[in-house]
């Protein structure tokens, strides 16, 4: 993946920029030496590394504003970073870009049980929001698997999901307000403690904008009362078709589980070796169906799911009868990534979404693509919402194998789009899928998105090289073709 060429005019300003920054920040919050910069040279898309021009660690919104205004004046690129857990390279530094770390924005500012919301600085971790309200039996619903480390600001930037978003929604469905700083230093507040932000839904637009529109400094999230109980059912199947059919039947029966996960044979075997969760090994596919709510409802729905599974050719049915058993069902699923890490030096985690009904066909075709590219692939799948995570195993020490893995991944994502799906369900486009945007969007679609970018950041200085294959100049995008103004459709109905 090519990043835009470093601009000499930026690299040449490094010393002057450092001097300017020292008037804004104490020296220990400006990271400039190589060994320290190395800690920031990648996010969770580990195949890509790049030392940033320098790193700044602001403490206050005023500092963020001043830093951005300074960089804007000097026409220097800026990449914002929370915990650096992006799986798509959203926080990958640029050689000619300042890396703005929100690591010090780590305070929960307000817990309001009466209005059922929490306001936190953007560098607060996802899990610590839930922890902060746990004693009152509340929690913050979106639960990306990196929730112990990932920040709420990063969650907003990426519109993060998690295994429970089938029932509780993604980040965008769970936030009420935010504060952000535009590239020119302007501070904007959106929403608050009330529902439905006023005017254009810029809150919704910012969510999932991958750090291209503004730097998020504060977020207000809704918190929910924790369900009284959760139980899970573990279902085994002889083939993916049967498993896919049961997923469809559960949804068709009006049941929206809290989580509905599928694992293929490779993952089952790998995670069983790794953590001994007690999964059946004689099956081709496993489903974990989790129901949460009050005990009466959960028991009722568990029985329905079991009936649907038995009617749908499930070969093994286990129902969790204790919290320990429920956690055991999840243990293998949650260990899937480290389990693969023990089997393969490297892997790429893909993230396409497909219509649920296409699942068996897509899994078959992914296997065929694996044979074609000569690489192993395993599948974990948020089956309830059609979000596929094929894990492509490769060895970066073998020259050319990363490129083969990437080509394989691209083929999978093209397949997702071909069957009516999309490139990414929850990881974001970032750097990783940037060059595939043309598979799903035509130039007109991309141009309109880039025009929106221009409304926030006219010089394209915020996180360039991400999301869009080529970031066009705003003046060029603003140009309009006005034809002679005659209506070439004289038959157009006019009333």
């Amino acid at each position: 993946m090519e990043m835009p060429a470093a601009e000499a005019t930026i690299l040449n300003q490094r010393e002057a920029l450092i001097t300017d920054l020292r008037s804004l920040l104490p020296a220990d919050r400006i990271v400039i030496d190589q060994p320290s910069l190395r800690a920031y040279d990648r996010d969770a898309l580990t195949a890509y590394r790049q030392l940033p021009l320098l790193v700044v660690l602001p403490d206050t919104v005023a500092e963020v504003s001043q830093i951005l205004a300074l960089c804007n004046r000097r026409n220097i690129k800026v990449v914002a970073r929370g915990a650096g857990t992006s799986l798509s390279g959203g926080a990958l530094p640029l050689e000619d870009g300042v890396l703005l770390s929100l690591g010090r924005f780590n305070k929960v500012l307000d817990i309001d049980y009466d209005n059922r919301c929490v306001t936190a600085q953007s560098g607060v971790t996802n899990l610590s929001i839930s922890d902060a309200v746990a004693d009152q039996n509340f929690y913050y619903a979106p639960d990306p698997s990196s929730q112990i480390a990932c920040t709420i600001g990063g969650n907003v930037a990426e519109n993060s999901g998690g295994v429970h978003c089938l029932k509780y929604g993604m980040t965008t469905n769970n936030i009420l307000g935010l504060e952000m700083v535009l590239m020119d230093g302007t501070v904007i507040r959106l929403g608050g403690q009330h529902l439905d932000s006023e005017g254009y839904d810029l809150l919704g637009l910012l969510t999932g904008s991958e750090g291209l529109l503004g730097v998020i400094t504060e977020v207000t999230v809704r918190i929910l009362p924790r369900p009284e109980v959760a139980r899970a059912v573990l279902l085994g199947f002889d083939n993916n078709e049967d498993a896919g059919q049961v997923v469809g039947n559960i949804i068709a029966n009006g049941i929206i589980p809290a989580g509905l996960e599928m694992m293929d044979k490779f993952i089952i075997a790998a995670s069983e070796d790794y953590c001994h969760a007690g999964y059946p090994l004689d099956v081709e596919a496993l489903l974990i169906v989790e129901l949460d709510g009050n005990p009466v409802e959960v028991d009722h729905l568990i029985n329905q799911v079991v009936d649907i599974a038995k009617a749908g050719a499930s070969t093994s049915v286990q129902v969790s009868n204790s919290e320990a058993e429920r956690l055991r069902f999840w243990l293998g699923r949650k260990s899937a990534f480290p389990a693969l890490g023990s089997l393969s030096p490297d892997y790429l985690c893909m993230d396409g979404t497909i219509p649920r009904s296409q699942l068996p066909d897509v899994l078959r075709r992914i296997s065929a693509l694996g044979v074609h590219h000569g690489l192993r692939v395993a599948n974990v799948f948020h089956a309830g919402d059609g979000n596929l995570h094929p894990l492509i195993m490769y060895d970066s020490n073998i020259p050319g194998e990363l490129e083969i893995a990437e080509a394989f991944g691209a083929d999978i994502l093209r397949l997702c789009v071909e069957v009516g799906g999309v490139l990414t369900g929850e990881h974001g486009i970032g750097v990783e899928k940037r060059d595939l945007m043309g598979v799903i969007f035509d130039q007109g679609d991309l141009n309109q998105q880039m025009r929106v970018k221009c409304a926030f950041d006219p010089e394209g200085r915020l996180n360039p090289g991400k999301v869009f294959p080529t970031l066009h100049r705003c003046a060029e995008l603003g140009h309009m073709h006005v034809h002679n103004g005659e209506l070439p459709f004289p038959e157009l109905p006019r009333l």
Partner: protein
Amino acid sequence: MSEIFKPNTTEQLIDVIQWANAHESALAVQGSGSKIGIGRPVDAEGILDLSGFSGISQYEPNELVLTAGAGTPLADIETLLTEHRQMLAFEPPDYSGVFHDHLSEKQSSSSQKKGTLGGVLSGNISGPRRFYAGAARDHFLGFRAVSGRGDPFKSGGRVVKNVTGFDLSKLMAGSWGTLAACWEVTVKVLPMPEKTRTLLLFGLSDEDASRCIGSAAATPNSISGASYLPASLFTRSPQSSASSVFANNPQSSVIALRVEGPEPSVEHRINALRELLTTSKNYARPNHVEVLNSTDSRVFWNEIGNLHFLSSDFQASNTQQQACWRLSVPPAVGWQVAHNITEKVFKSNPKVSWFSDQAGGLIWLSCPVNSPAGAPTKNSEHSIRSAMEPWGGHATLWQVTGGDNAADHRRNTQVFQPQPKALAALTQRVKRSFDPNGVLNPGRMYTGL
């Protein structure tokens, strides 16, 4: 007399908008016209009628997704979904029973009255289930549109979980047709609940009711409707309902809490709530408690969403101008906002009434368009906004009826919450990024936008 353009194909739609750009001519964007009375009036030479883009093109019940022309009547969509026991979970309301002034001839057919799918999305208009299941925008998965530049584009997709590119569906929802003309939209649908029950608690004070609703919402009973009709609503005249809510019950304040789901769960939760809310020491005990069944619940919650309990203020025969305001506020302070406005601004004028929805976070206010004598400004807008200020949130002048110049009043009022300068400038730049010449619905949301 405005010229009406009614394209049936994307090419024609592109052509109309490009023509408008070339002629510096503005277009008022409409579906069935059911929401003309909401927002600022548009001063446009032409009307862009999108009702030609009608029909459900793709509906797969097992995928919980539906794609339709933006001009498809909501009534048609709901009929089809009901056949499959599914629904639009954001519960699009129907205001046609309350606001009569703006219904044109065209809407005489009942299927048009509720408006179109594109219309409800472009206003991001949701009903009582909003705080539980999300707003219209949360169910809006993707669209195809022609921008105000006259360029076709699409965004989103047909799957629920999608972060591919900017989420322009969110931007379109609530933009009131000022950015682009959507011609095809895709929405998420959900299964209808098997059973519905509504717990009614009568006779609490406004403050106690707020506490009571707050404690109900803090339980894991998944309340999907939480509305409150204050005692003041019953003082002028008794309230009527097509449900049994007032059949055997006092005409007094009433809290309504809705619970939906499988039968055993619904019974369990209703009992848990009843037990909790009738024995708490944090607020007075209700003087009467009742539970509505599924059928009555459906009728009652439609009445809440459709503003039925304010309808006597907006009868077609009224000659005095009356305003309907929609106040979105932090839920726990909704009642205080309402009191501040009714008592401090309007000095307990009997022509002012309100009720709350969304667990207290949404106040529907009916009041005269003018402030009482002696107020700093004649238009009551300013006083209402000032009264809300301590608590945050936003106020929208939802509708004005009565008299001959209701539209003039909306034109002379900041219908949507005025924005701080930097946000207003950003809003303007976003608008220009879609519609640089301002041909689509100019002035519909803000003067000069």
